[in-house]
């Protein structure tokens, strides 16, 4: 009787501790609503995943750029206080490389992603999807990547092949000879 009771207690203890260790789900937090995910899920994949409906032209982008971007980045993406956005082609192997959207960025989708999340500097996440398409189109136009008549949307933006698309390699380190 005593032994049985003891055995039961031991079995219960083992069972309890095993389940405590095995528990992977703590039941904390809750499932997000679709609206919450929609509001926060702003990243754009290199394949265009996440691009919203809408469209914008180079001409529309030129107007928005003049009002919201040029003060920091220069009238045509050159000569401002903030990062240079245009030109620099052929300089990456030189002593003073000029890294711009056109000369360096491997994906056009990153332009949309970054402008939407972080620009304009004084009002991030304030541009509409149409405006972001338009500004992206204008910056790409300044680099000769799209034509003056281009209109970008969720289909045409990820189809753009950037000039430096193949300019990146993986990490080869350690890259110094062993001693």
């Amino acid at each position: 009787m005593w032994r049985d009771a003891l055995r039961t207690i031991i079995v219960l203890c083992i069972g309890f501790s095993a389940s405590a260790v095995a528990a992977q789900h703590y039941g904390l937090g809750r499932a997000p609503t679709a609206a919450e995910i929609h509001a926060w899920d702003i990243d754009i994949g290199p394949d265009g995943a996440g691009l919203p409906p809408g469209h914008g032209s180079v001409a529309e982008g030129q107007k928005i750029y003049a009002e919201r971007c040029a003060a920091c980045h220069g009238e045509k993406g050159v000569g401002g206080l903030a990062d240079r956005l245009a030109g620099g082609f052929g300089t990456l192997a030189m002593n003073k490389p000029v890294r711009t959207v056109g000369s360096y960025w491997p994906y056009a989708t990153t332009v949309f992603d970054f402008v939407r999340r972080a620009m304009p500097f004084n009002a991030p996440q304030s541009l509409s999807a149409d405006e972001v398409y338009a500004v992206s189109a204008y910056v790409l136009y300044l680099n000769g990547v799209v034509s003056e008549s281009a209109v970008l949307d969720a289909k045409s933006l990820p189809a753009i092949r950037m000039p430096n698309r193949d300019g990146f390699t993986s990490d080869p380190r350690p890259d110094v000879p062993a001693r």
Partner: protein
Amino acid sequence: MANEKTLIGRRGLLAASAGFLGASVSSGRGQASNDSEGLVPPWSKEQGAPIRESSYGEPSPFEKNVVRRPRGALPTFPSAGTSDTPLQNLTGIITPNGLVYERHHAGIPPIDPAQHRLLIHGLVDRPLILTMDELTRFPSVSRLHFLECSGNSSATWTGGNPKWTVQDTHGLLSCCEWTGVLLSTLLDEVGIKPAAKWVLAEGADAAGLSRSVPIDKALDDAIVVYAQNGEKLRPEQGYPVRLFLPGYEGNMSVKWLRRLKLGEGPFQTREETSKYTDLMPDGTARQFTFIMEAKSVITFPSGGHHLKGPGFYEISGLAWTGRGRIKRVEVSTDGGTSWHEAQLQEPVLSKCLTRFRLPWTWDGGPATLQSRATDETGYIQPPRRMLTDVRGFNSYYHLNGIHPWHIDPSGGVSNVA
């Protein structure tokens, strides 16, 4: 203290104490002080300041110059800047919270933790949204790790400036005890779909700073951190929650973490394409260079210090590696001709600063001091020249070369330009 002095004065306080304690104080001392020549400092002869009931303790006013400083001119856009840790003034391996280096891309957001949420979604079975209270209920870990900006020491690729201190050359480096929830715990909670290979980490700052993290790292030792050195994260360190990736370049430990999204491939964010990539001499660029390789630097004596004549000094410095533990640190006092094995402060922890020390007697002549770290993989910290031979001068990030300091016969210590 000033008030007490004004009201009572030293003699008055002594008289009051004697009166309070009565006969037990007055016997056997006579009238003459044992300090007729003024050799006992005044602070040993009067009551100190009372405890400060409502304030957060601060260093002695004599240490007011031990502060974070930006190197060079302030940035064009003040919210996108850096400040460096004063390594020349610190001992041991822990960086006090107020001195942990800063790198912000869009300033320090004033986040209310009651309103902040962490969303985990994408290729998971059960998307999850957590309050900070809920996050802190998960099983936690506390681990000591260094944090180093990938751009630390970048200004010295081409040599540097004789006036630079170790704060200027290596100050984008700090080390704390970080407390939080292992990311693997949270990923177990949401259930990872087999196709998920990368995790996007995104901050709640105005930059929405975002980086892609390989799933292997996320499941290995990544921590979702809410505290440092025993207290909640400082605002400039990501309050109320940040990601922490031990051994990886600092910007990947995304501060003010608001979202983790699992996906099949890297998300190719602006920071991991146009910014934190390393340009090589042929014009190609290395991408996803995550690990901070073995590195060390002497912090005493270092630039700006002044040795007060020949004699004994303890050379001391820091070594670290993103690949695990430091195995050995060697120090040279003759510009690299001969090397001496330094003593490592125990315990030597993985992906953590390791303090090293070497006794040294300075003979008063010119000397060049430098340190060389070896990590547990056998990797030996290279001279800068070995790095520039391979990488040229445009890669900017990940400079982990040997760093010499020159001591001139007057005792001045300067960066070797």
